[in-house]
């Protein structure tokens, strides 16, 4: 969905894709044992929390780059400040916000 051509992150996608697959394969090869250990609670609580942080980084990087490779990218800087903004204007706010301006954004 990109509106401009940019270099696609093939390398990152492949590296993080392999890492993500390896992590999933590693965990699910010993899924029952790992789940049983994590289910002991107490200090074992660090297990699932650390695991999801690791997966969110590795799999998150993979999925983000995957969408870019597939050409699905952000198209505009969506955020804008309403005219009600800032300290000096707080008491005399405008009532209408301008439509967000379009701009190309690669993220």
């Amino acid at each position, binding site marked *: *969905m990109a*509106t*401009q051509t940019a270099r696609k992150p093939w390398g990152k996608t492949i590296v993080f894709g392999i890492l993500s697959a390896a992590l*999933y394969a590693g*965990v*699910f090869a010993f*899924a*029952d044992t*790992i*789940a*049983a*250990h*994590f*289910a*002991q*609670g*107490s200090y*074992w*609580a*660090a*297990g*699932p*929390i650390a*695991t*999801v942080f690791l*997966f*969110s980084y590795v*799999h*998150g990087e993979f*999925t*983000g780059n*995957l*969408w870019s490779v597939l050409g*699905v*990218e*952000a*198209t*505009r*800087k*969506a*955020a*804008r*400040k*309403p005219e*009600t*903004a*800032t*300290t000096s204007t*707080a*008491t005399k*706010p*405008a*009532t*209408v*916000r301008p*439509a*967000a301006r*379009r701009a190309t*954004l690669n*993220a």
Partner: protein
Amino acid sequence: MDILTLDPTKFIDLNATGVCFLFIVGFIGGLVSGFIGSGGAFVLTPGMMSLGVPGTVAVASNMCHKFPKALVGAIKRFRYGQVDVKLGLVMAASAAVGVQMGIRIQQVILEKWGQAGSDLYVSLSFVAVLVLVGGYVMRDALRCARSGGVETTAPLALRLQAIELPPMLTFRRSGIRISLWFTLPVGFATGMLAATIAVGGFIGVPGMIYVMGVPGLMASATELVIAFVMGLGGSINWAMHGMVDIRLVLIILGGSLLGVQLGAIGTTYVREHMIKMVMAVIMLIVAVSRGIALPRYLVQLGLMDVSPEVLGVLGKISFGSMCLALLTGAVIILGSMWKGRAAAREEAHGQA
């Protein structure tokens, strides 16, 4: 229990159907969350329970997938300039108090009226909040659509912003300055709802928009920060009690991280009122779904007489309509993205 084997009363045997179901619902839930800041939890928890997962494990595992998903979504939308971290942290602090109050109320109801009473309270809260707030959001979304997508600051927010009640907080990213005292009820209500129906965003996002005057796009993205903070705290709590099934979490996360990024990208393609529209449509369909489930709890409390067969059918319709809510939201998001893409291409051609 031998720690090398799973307790069958807590952990189900996974099969291909269950894995596919969780992955797909995770993806759609992620898509909706990335777009409106919340959603998916209301289908995932009952969905897991329908696979045989005990309620507490379903809630814990759902929460444990929710905070990393919110983190990834928040980072993505922060890059688009849509996240107000300061606002998210202020809201999360008061939401944490709301969660504790919500849990306490649940405990009192459970002690007094039992599980059926608690379920009835949850369903009534669902219906009341979603009909009132969802109806208001829908009305505003339609008004915005009729005026060509121009978003106006709510009159209540304008009035509150004009009141100088110390301490005043300035949220530069959102472009608002408002008293701390007006942020507290919104955060508190978000936490209360999160503890009651597991989707605090259904009140957090409209609260930020209509009470505080935060732009819709910014409110939906900032909700992800609140979801991350609350989800992390809740997950640590559940994990310390050994209630998280890491297998379920990772399967759902696999789909939801794909979805949340797509939903975040989607926000850059659509007009702002579409976020309100998607949120309102989902809220109103879920309200109908919970309304259909009410007779079951009324029967359990002896307040109504309906045959078990009818209750079974109503239960299926209720779950089906919740899935429909999520699916409808996803279709609107993808359709809007498609239209936005076409418009962006036309614009690019026009400039060339």
